[in-house]
């Protein structure tokens, strides 16, 4: 384990509860969860289906708000931010990797990676250069002009990782990034994320079902029924 915990946490969750109303039934997806995530951590959240992993990731990724509790990101209390401010916050400080890759099918690999930069208003020339460099980092420079449907699942997920990293985020959220990949591609994707974590000091939080991938992490949090059952820092 690195000395990541010596740094102030970039994300603080305090007494997070998330309740969903399904018809007349109330479901407590998260029960009073408190958690600190430090800069540079490579952290996995794991647990059985329905344990609240995705709900937790959505709250960490600021795309969902807790029913109760506080989320502080980079010392900013996110409760005071309105939708536009939260969006701006996500744009600059967070990267997302989705289970289904979620690339825009009509844009090439390079254009997909340029997208978050252009949303930020970065000039096209600079966005193109930075996106090309990000594709080099994930080993896909040869495929920069390919449309997503011409790429394999592993390659698509690497484009998605490049898209997440191109904005130099503080934290990358990856919800089941290997769920749609075979074991070889899963291993490669996790190794790539690990490499980026080490080389660029980017914090990664991802969820997984796959026990084998947990061997690569610094810290693993086991969730069950919306509660943290264990928070284990690896040696």
């Amino acid at each position, binding site marked *: 384990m690195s000395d990541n915990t010596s740094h102030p946490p970039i994300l603080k969750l305090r007494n997070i509860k998330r309740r969903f109303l399904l018809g007349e039934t109330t479901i407590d997806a998260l029960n009073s969860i408190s958690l600190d995530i430090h800069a540079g951590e490579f952290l996995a959240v794991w647990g059985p289906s329905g344990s609240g992993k995705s709900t937790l990731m959505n709250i960490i990724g600021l795309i*969902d708000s807790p029913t109760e509790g506080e989320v502080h990101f980079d010392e900013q209390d996110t409760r005071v931010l309105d939708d536009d401010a939260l969006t701006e916050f996500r744009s600059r400080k967070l990267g997302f990797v989705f289970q289904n890759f979620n690339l*825009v099918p009509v844009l090439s690999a390079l254009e997909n990676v340029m997208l978050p930069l*252009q*949303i*930020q208003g970065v000039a*096209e020339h600079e966005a193109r250069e930075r996106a090309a460099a990000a594709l080099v980092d994930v080993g896909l420079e040869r495929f920069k002009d390919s449309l997503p449907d011409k790429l394999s699942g592993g390659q698509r997920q690497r484009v998605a990782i490049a898209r997440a990293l191109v904005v130099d985020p503080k934290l990358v959220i990856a919800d089941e990034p290997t769920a749609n990949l075979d074991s070889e591609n899963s291993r490669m994707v996790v190794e790539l994320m690990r490499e980026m974590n080490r080389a660029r000091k980017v914090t990664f939080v991802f969820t997984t079902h796959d026990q084998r991938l947990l061997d690569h992490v610094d810290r693993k949090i086991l969730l069950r029924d919306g509660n943290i059952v264990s928070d284990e820092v690896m040696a």
Partner: protein
Amino acid sequence: MKNMIRLALRGMMRNRRRSLMTLLAIAFGFSAIALFAGYTHNVYDGLSRQSIHGEMLGHLTLSKRGMRKEGRLDPERYLLTATEVAAITKLLQDEQHVEMVAPRLALSGLVSNGRASTIFIAEGIEPEAVVKLRSGSLTEAEKKSGRFDNMWMRLDAERPEVVSLAEGLVELLHLKEGEQAQVLVNTLSGQANAADITLGKGFNTGNAGSNDKFAFVSLVLARTLLDAEGRADRLTILLDDKNQTEAMRDRLLARLGAAGFDVEIMTWQELSDFYNQVHGMFDMIFGFIFSIVLTVVVMSVANSMGMTVIERTREIGTLRAIGLKRSGVVRLFTMESMLLTLIGCAAGLLITLLVRWGVNAADISYIPPNSAGRVPLLIDLDIMRTLFTFLLMGVVGTLAAWMPARRAAQKDIIDALGHV
């Protein structure tokens, strides 16, 4: 912005068949409006020429104030005197845009072939003025076609007794060109006054209602018949530019008022009831067609964009997650809709030009209501209304996407990401 346009353009290409159908609806709708606007433009232009030159209203008609309302009952009072005619004509001829000032004198009475009589309504006008007024009546293409040769009538400056009767009147009296007839008219003081006339070339008024009544006589003969030497009931003013009509009316009124003349000046549009009625009718039909087409376009675009938004819900969730604001989502889809509408309108413009060329080349003619002859079916390019349609359809097509785009933007990110 460039990336947004690229994304919008490529978004359009995702469901090509649907985009094509929407595009065709816009294109054909646009061309329907543009073609009808072009047709009415041609009709308005033809009618304006018919009024100004064919009916010889000129651009402006000057008369003593009250002449139009009270002149028939008290002509003596409302006719311009010989001195007034000369002074006003001199003043008007100094004006820059005035090409010609023609004194006119209307009269009515009976015309007889010796066996039968019928009423007639005539205009007394100088033969030279007829030639000048009529010179702008037809376009070069219309003159070449020969279809309107029967519209031309002639008065003879050397022979004031030569009268040009409308074809219907000639037919009614069984007269032939060169034959003699008699006219009976009341003078201004109410005395009966008769004269022999010689039948000149007949003409077609272009209007079934007046083709059996109307006649042109020389101003000299009219003045003789009415015993109104040097007088006129009005002055017809021909300008060198139709667009100067309103401005010149105001200017001339001011000048004449300052010179002490109590006159009124009417424009050709104010005098031509037929032009105004046709204009009003076509404007209403245009508005009706425009509303229907616009509704079809709005429905097509809204439906197309509604489907697009549903299909791309997950993409919207992704874009929102990586930093696109709600306003950005609205912008993206309205941009897509705007491009679709503008491309559709551009295609519609192309269709318009092709159809216009085809129709104009086909030499089609028809008989409009209340017309005594065939007229060619021609389509102009009404630039103003075409441009207006282009812009309005662009705006409305863009706004049609606003509701679905807004609905997409309001969608919860997690729900959008989980959309299947």
